[in-house]
């Protein structure tokens, strides 16, 4: 009978499809593929001095780069640093263009929905930078003015959530510093370390306002991984903790930042 045959066919194909799907769902941990290829691909923007930037030999160096190298060394694999714009960095991770993001990324609940975090591997505070002669003296004065933020970072979210600011987004700090000087924005909202380094480098006349801890004075930065990678996550977490314990981390931190930022 035709209908019976057809039914049998449907059942058989459903079973086959289910079998295929289930093998697709139970995917191997990324740790295995990293160990097989003997290489971990780590993404950073390369536009965030002193964490990741191109030195005059056009190599990507900095705190994030050194941490990446040290972690890879502990895993017994080589590191391949991939520079990609920060606003697309999570999309690239999900698209499997690399295995991890070590790009000074603040751990936020929103990001935790998309990726898993190892760490925090350092802490930094939110800073508000204004011109030296600005009328903005404290966080309370920061309203009804234009502020510059990096597209897609945690300060971008924060500035928008305040509701009384005109937010302009930028690709990186250098452009923001130029626009602050030119008067196109009244303030920059940013992590403290890069600003301090940049201002020291350029000699620009600015004033730094540090908001209270409750307003993001301290934030944890994490290493982002694709979800469902418990083994890779545990391996990196252990490697990070070992580095923190045996002085490797401190050395890296002193080299690039000048103090221990754990």
């Amino acid at each position, binding site marked *: 009978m035709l209908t019976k045959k057809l039914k049998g066919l449907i059942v058989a194909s459903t079973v086959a499809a289910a079998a295929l799907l289930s093998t697709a769902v139970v995917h191997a941990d990324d740790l295995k593929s990293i160990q097989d290829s003997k290489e971990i691909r780590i993404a950073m923007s*390369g536009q965030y001095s002193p964490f990741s930037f191109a*030195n005059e030999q056009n190599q990507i160096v900095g705190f994030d780069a050194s941490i990446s190298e040290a972690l890879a060394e502990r895993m017994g694999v080589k590191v391949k640093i991939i*520079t990609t*714009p920060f606003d697309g960095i999570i999309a690239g991770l999900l*698209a499997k263009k690399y295995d991890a993001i070590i790009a000074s990324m603040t751990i936020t609940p929103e990001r935790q929905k998309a990726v898993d975090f190892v760490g925090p591997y350092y802490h930094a505070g939110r800073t508000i930078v204004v011109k030296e002669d600005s009328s903005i003296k404290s966080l309370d004065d920061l309203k009804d003015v234009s502020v510059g933020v990096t597209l897609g970072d945690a300060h971008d979210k924060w500035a928008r959530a305040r509701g009384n600011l005109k937010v302009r987004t930028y690709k990186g700090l250098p452009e923001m510093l130029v626009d602050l000087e030119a008067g196109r924005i009244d303030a920059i909202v940013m992590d403290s370390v890069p600003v301090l380094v940049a201002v020291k480098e350029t000699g620009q006349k600015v004033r730094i306002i540090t908001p209270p801890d409750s307003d993001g004075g301290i934030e944890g930065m994490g290493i982002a991984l694709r979800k469902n990678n418990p083994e890779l996550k545990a391996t990196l977490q252990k490697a990070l903790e070992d580095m923190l314990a045996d002085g490797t981390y401190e050395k890296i931190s002193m080299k690039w930042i000048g103090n221990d930022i754990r």
Partner: protein
Amino acid sequence: MDLTLIQRTFPFFLEAAWITVQISVLALVLGFLVAIVLVAGRLSTVLVFRCLARLYISVFRGTPCLVQLFIIYFGGPQVGLELEPFAAGVIGLGLNIAAYMAESIRGAISNVDPGQEEAARSIGFGRGQTLWFITLPQAAKLMIRPLGVNAVALIKGSALVSTISVVELSYTAQRFISSTYKPFEIFMVSALLYIVMVYSVRFIIDYLDNRFAAR
């Protein structure tokens, strides 16, 4: 102006410009091949082919190249298409420019005096023969300049691949700016290199045009 900075970083800009050249040339070759298929579709007597070619051209000309690159690079893996940034860049730019090149080629063909085709057909040439022996040789001259305009647009548009982590001229510039804080000098150098590339293409186009099309 920090001239020594320009001097120190210039070799890396040359390397980066070379990546831009490679990506542009490969995209141009890919684009030309796809464009030929599209033109064949546009001029086909089969309705389905005509419609497909038209659809391709409207979709690729009607959406931003940036979005097309994002779909290929970030969206690709979701449907099993795993591409390195460089390959994704070449394919994205190539598929995009193909739509414009197809219109340039088709425009050139339709600009050939229709009397030529009529004459050829009346002395017994078939449709294909007419196209190959009569129309195309005359159209070839007419497409030099429009295709050159496409090539120039492609070189300038190649800066878009910096968003999918191809470290070409624009992204190299951005990376150097973040460690030197000198956007003016750095962007001037990259602009200068783009001008050199664009004018090299223009020079070639002018030469070909003078040689074959003028008169």
